[in-house]
C-alpha cells in the first residue's frame, strides 16, 4: 500500500523528514508515533501528495509521489490535524462539496450513509459552526471516507476529544480495519495506538523502529512473567535462574518475576521446576510494559 525509499523533506535549514524507508502492508493499521515537530504531519503530507519530497521516493496505492499526484489524492482519504470544515455551511453541504470534488458518483447516497453511520444525520442541515469539536471531527472522518478509499491517513484522530467521542472514533477506526482498509495513523495517544495498531513506527525526524507493539515491548524490555507463590525463598530463585532460557529472575514479596523471550514455551517448564522445589504456584500472569514505556525509551534514546 505504501512504500517509501529514503524519503526526505527539508525546509530551508530544517530537516523535517530524514531518509524514511518504510512499508505499510494492505489491510494493516500502522501507527506513526513521535513527539511534536517530529515530522509526522510532513510525512503524511508527502504521502498524500500535498507537498513534494526533497529527495527519495514513495509509492502510494501503486502511484508514484511527485509523478501521479492527482491519482494519489483521488485514491486516498485524509483526516487532517484540524477538521477544517466550512463553518457557515451545513454538514450535508460540506460533505456534498467534497463528494463532488472526489468525483463520487452517488454523492447524496454516500453523504447520507456516512452521516447516519457517524450519528450526524439528524443534524445534517445545521451549520457546522453549531457543532461540538467531537461532531466536527466525526464529520471530518466522514469527509475522508466519502469516496471509499482503501487507504486512509488519520492525523491525530482523537486529539482534543472527550472520552466518549474518542471511544466512538476508535470504534469506527476498528470497523474500518475490519472492512480491510489500510490505515496510516499519526497519534500521540499511546493507549489508542496499542489497541488499534498492528504495527507501530516510532519517528523523530527519522524512523527509530518499526514493529508490532508486543515485539517492541519484548525487544526493549524482554517479556516478564509473574509467578504468584504462597511463599518464596532464595533456593527457588536460584533454581529458576539456572534454567537456560531464563534471562533474569527476582523476588518481589511473594511474587517471582522472571524475564523470558518466549513465555508461552517456557512457562510450563518453570512451573514444573517451581513445584519440584516445593513452591505452591497460585497464579501466573504477564507483566506488561505500557507502550508509553516503549515510546519514552526510544524517543529519549534518540
Amino acid at each position, binding site marked *: 500500500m505504501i512504500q517509501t525509499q529514503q524519503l526526505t523533506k527539508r525546509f530551508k535549514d530544517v530537516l523535517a523528514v530524514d531518509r524514511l524507508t518504510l512499508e505499510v502492508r494492505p489491510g494493516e493499521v500502522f501507527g506513526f508515533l513521535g513527539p511534536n515537530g517530529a515530522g509526522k504531519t510532513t510525512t503524511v503530507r508527502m504521502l498524500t501528495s500535498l507537498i513534494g519530497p526533497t529527495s527519495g521516493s514513495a509509492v502510494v496505492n501503486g502511484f508514484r509521489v511527485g509523478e501521479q499526484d492527482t*491519482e494519489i489524492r483521488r485514491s486516498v482519504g485524509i483526516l487532517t490535524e484540524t477538521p477544517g470544515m466550512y463553518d457557515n455551511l451545513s454538514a450535508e453541504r460540506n460533505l456534498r462539496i467534497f463528494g463532488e470534488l472526489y468525483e463520487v458518483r452517488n454523492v447524496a447516497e454516500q453523504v447520507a450513509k456516512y452521516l447516519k453511520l457517524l450519528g450526524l444525520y439528524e443534524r445534517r442541515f445545521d451549520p457546522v459552526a453549531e457543532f461540538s469539536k467531537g461532531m466536527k471531527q466525526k464529520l471530518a472522518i466522514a469527509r475522508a471516507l466519502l469516496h471509499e478509499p482503501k487507504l486512509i491517513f488519520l492525523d491525530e484522530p482523537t486529539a482534543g476529544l472527550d472520552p466518549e467521542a474518542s471511544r466512538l472514533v476508535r470504534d469506527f477506526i476498528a470497523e474500518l480495519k475490519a472492512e480491510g482498509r489500510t490505515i496510516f495513523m499519526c497519534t500521540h495517544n499511546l493507549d489508542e495506538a496499542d489497541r488499534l495498531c498492528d504495527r507501530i513506527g516510532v519517528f523523530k525526524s527519522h524512523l527509530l523502529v518499526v514493529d508490532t507493539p508486543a515485539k517492541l515491548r519484548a525487544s526493549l524490555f524482554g517479556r516478564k512473567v509473574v509467578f504468584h507463590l504462597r511463599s518464596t525463598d532464595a533456593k527457588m530463585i536460584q533454581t529458576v535462574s539456572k534454567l537456560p532460557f531464563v534471562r533474569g529472575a527476582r523476588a518481589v514479596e511473594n511474587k517471582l518475576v522472571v524475564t523470558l523471550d518466549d513465555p508461552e514455551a517456557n512457562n510450563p517448564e518453570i512451573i514444573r521446576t517451581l513445584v519440584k522445589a516445593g513452591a505452591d504456584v497460585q497464579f501466573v500472569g504477564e507483566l506488561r510494559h505500557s507502550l508509553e514505556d516503549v515510546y519514552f525509551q526510544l524517543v529519549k534514546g534518540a
Partner: protein
Amino acid sequence: MNKIKIILCKEWAEVFKHRMVLFTVVFLPLMMTALPLGILWGTGEVGSTDSLEGTIDSEMPEPLVAAMCPEGLSGADCFQVFMVSQFMMLFMLVPVAIPVTIAAYSIVGEKTTRSLEPLLATPITTLELLAGKCLAAVIPAVLATFGAFGLFALGSRLIVANPMLLTALLDARWLIAIFVVGPLLAIMAVTFSLMVSSRVSDPRVAEQVSMVIIVPVLGGFFGQMAGLFVLDRTLVTWVAVVMLALDLGLLFLAGRVFQRETILTRWK
C-alpha cells in the same frame, strides 16, 4: 471545469453569509449609481437657466471641451457631461472594491478555518482552485458593475430629454471603461488580494491592505478634476491595454504564490 464550478458555488455559499460582503456587493453599486444620477438631475435643474452658457467654452481647457463637449451640445449640457464624468470615474471603484472584499474573506477565511488542507487533498488542480476562487470574486463584481451601469443608463434616459446629451453621457469612452476596463480592474483587484491574503491572517486586514488597489482609480478621479489629463476615448483604450498587461503579470505572480506547498507551509 466542473471542479471550478464546485469551488465557485462553495465560495458564494460561504462568502455571502458575511454581512460585510453582502453590503459591499449590494450597497456600493447602488450608491455609485445614485451619485451620478443625482448629479445629472441636479445639474439639469441648474443648466436649464443657461447660466453656464459661454463659461464652458471660455474657461474649460481645449482637450476637456473636445472630450466632453461634442458639437451640438450647449454649455450647460457640456457641464453636465463633465460633472457626470467625474462621478463615473468613482463608479470604477465598484469592480475594484467588490472582489477585494470577497477575496479577503474567501482566502483568509480558508486560513482561519484551516479548510485549505482538506481542500488541497482532493484531486483538484491548483489551477482549478485558483480559477474558482478568482471567478467567485470577479463575477459578482462584473455583474454588479454592468447592472449598476444599466441602472445608470436607464436613469439617465428618464432624466435627460436631449438625445444628444444622452449619447454624450453614454459614449464609447464609458462603454469601453465599463465593459473592458471594469472586468480587467476586477481581475487585477482579485489577484492583488490573493497575494495580500496569502500574507495576513485576518480578513479585515487583508481587505484594508488590498484596498490600496483603489488608489489608481482615485488618482484618475482627482487627476481629471485637477485638469492633469482628460479621460477621452484614446486614453481609456490605452488604460485597457495597460490593464491587460498588468493583469497578465499579476495572474502569473498569483500562480507562483498560489502553490500547494507554499499555501500549506507558509499560510499561517
